[in-house]
């Protein structure tokens, strides 16, 4: 029997919940964003793309720090949420979701944007000449052709959220059942020199990540060949 207590299982459950909610939200937010980044000719396309990519290079603690300030009681967003009687977001599950969405955004945007760019304008032009309106073209042509990009984005966003540590610690702390995710639980076990429990959780993460990446490569090999 693994030396895990109910708090550890709670952390596993919380992590999966956080990753699922984050992934769903990301796909909803990122699809129009990726479409815009792939097609816009506006001057501010570059700056927007750079901002979206920032979490790739920033240390998570930096992002977490600024989010803590922004969402905290004296921050712009914090004042707004307080005024709306929602309280403040740091040290809550919702706060973690906000942090994770921002932190994992580039991992979701880029595969989808690449897929939209790779298909070019031609399939959409063809669909337009076949009487499909803009929404119809998007759903009947662009989305199916970008399917490999969406698959990659889903897996990367989910896995990246599961593996998140710095942002969670800065923004969410270590509240059992509310913000204590797997990575934080492992950290706690190591701090308490409970290497047995840490092994079970850490080993599980290694296995999970391997399976995810394996699935990604197997799925990635079977993308649509764009025929002339």
């Amino acid at each position, binding site marked *: 029997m693994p030396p895990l207590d109910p708090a550890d299982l709670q952390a596993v459950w919380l992590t999966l919940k956080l990753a699922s909610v984050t992934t769903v939200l990301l796909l909803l937010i990122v699809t129009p964003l990726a479409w815009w980044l792939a097609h816009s000719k506006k001057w501010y396309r570059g700056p927007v793309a750079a901002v979206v990519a920032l979490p790739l290079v920033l240390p998570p603690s930096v992002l977490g720090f600024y989010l803590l300030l922004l969402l905290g009681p004296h921050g712009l967003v914090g004042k707004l949420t307080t005024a709306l009687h929602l309280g403040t977001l740091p040290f809550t599950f919702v706060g973690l979701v906000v942090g994770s969405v921002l932190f994992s955004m580039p991992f979701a945007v880029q595969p989808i944007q690449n897929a939209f760019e790779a298909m070019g304008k*031609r*399939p959409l*032009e*063809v*669909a*337009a*000449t*076949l*009487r*499909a*309106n803009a929404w*119809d*073209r998007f759903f*009947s*042509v662009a989305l*199916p*052709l970008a*399917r490999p990009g969406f698959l990659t984005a889903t897996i990367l966003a989910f896995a990246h959220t599961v593996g998140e540590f710095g942002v969670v610690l800065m923004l969410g702390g270590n509240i059992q059942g509310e913000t204590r995710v797997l990575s934080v639980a492992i950290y706690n076990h190591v701090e308490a020199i409970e290497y047995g429990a840490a092994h079970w959780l850490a080993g599980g993460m290694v296995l999970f990540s391997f399976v995810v990446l394996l699935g990604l490569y197997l799925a990635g090999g079977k993308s*649509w*060949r*764009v*025929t*002339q």
Partner: protein
Amino acid sequence: MSEISAQFQMQLDTFALDASFTAPSVGVTALFGPSGSGKTTLLRCIAGLEKARGTLQVNGATWQDEKTFLPVHQRPLGYVFQEASLFPHLSVRANLEYGLKRTPPAERKVPLEQVVEWLGLGRLIERGDPAKLSGGERQRVAIGRALLTSPRILLMDEPLSALDSTSKQEILPYLERLHRELNIPVLYVSHALDEVARLADHLVLLEKGRVIASGALHETLARLDLPLAHFDDAGAVLEASVAQQDETYHLTRLDFPGGQLWVGKVEQPFGTRVRARVLARDVSIATQPPQGSSINNILNARIAEIRDEGPHKVMLRLQVGDAHTLLSRITRRSRDQLGLTEGMFVCAQVKSVALMA
């Protein structure tokens, strides 16, 4: 007002498109010009794929003017791109049905079976994945897909140019068949003179974004003031009909007002209309009916125009009968030795005739 009238201005990278033309509402109108002359851009403007300033009327309906710009999907047109551009995520059948499904039932005039029959798609549908088709087969499916939206005009952007010559030969008979069967106008972009001579009825000639000439095919091809008549493969087109079969020598006589031509056996019934193309370099001139010549086809003609073509060649425009024209390319020396002048009656010896269906 049943015709197509278009007029567009648009600034492009290297030149300005400033083109206007009208085309009849029946038959195939070729937009012809060298690459980079703006013919594809013009076609895209007509489809609404490019937003140029201008006006466009198709069969009395305004598709574009100062106030109107009908979006592409609301224009009842079919568009065939250079590359077939079949949807790779859909089966051949689903590709064919993509536009059909989006055409309101009341507007559907072309049944699937009809298109399948015209373009020989029966076996292709069964094959499922479009990636398994050859280039020519994919283009046939693309043409069928466009026709199934029951368009009121068919736009074709060099549909053969991405194909190898075998695929081209395979697909041309289908295009000729469409030419005979379709009762909608076709705008056909091309830079290949032989394709145009074969398929078009009407010609719009483009150069550097401007329309330099427009008119019936057989007249425009033979106009010596235009660059067409000075191409290496310049020639004239005659519309003739099958008049007699010679079983012994395996020949067919084609008649047209003003003369007749013997050609290799045409397996068509008496009276069938065929189009014959006679290249300028295959027509030689004699001032007397030649004796002991191997050439079968000698036509009485009047020299309508003579124009120098480079240092040693001249091009003659010959009037045959009332309505037909031939081109003949001879040397300047021959012209002087025979004393050829405009208005003279001569014998045009036709060495070879290419039949275009």
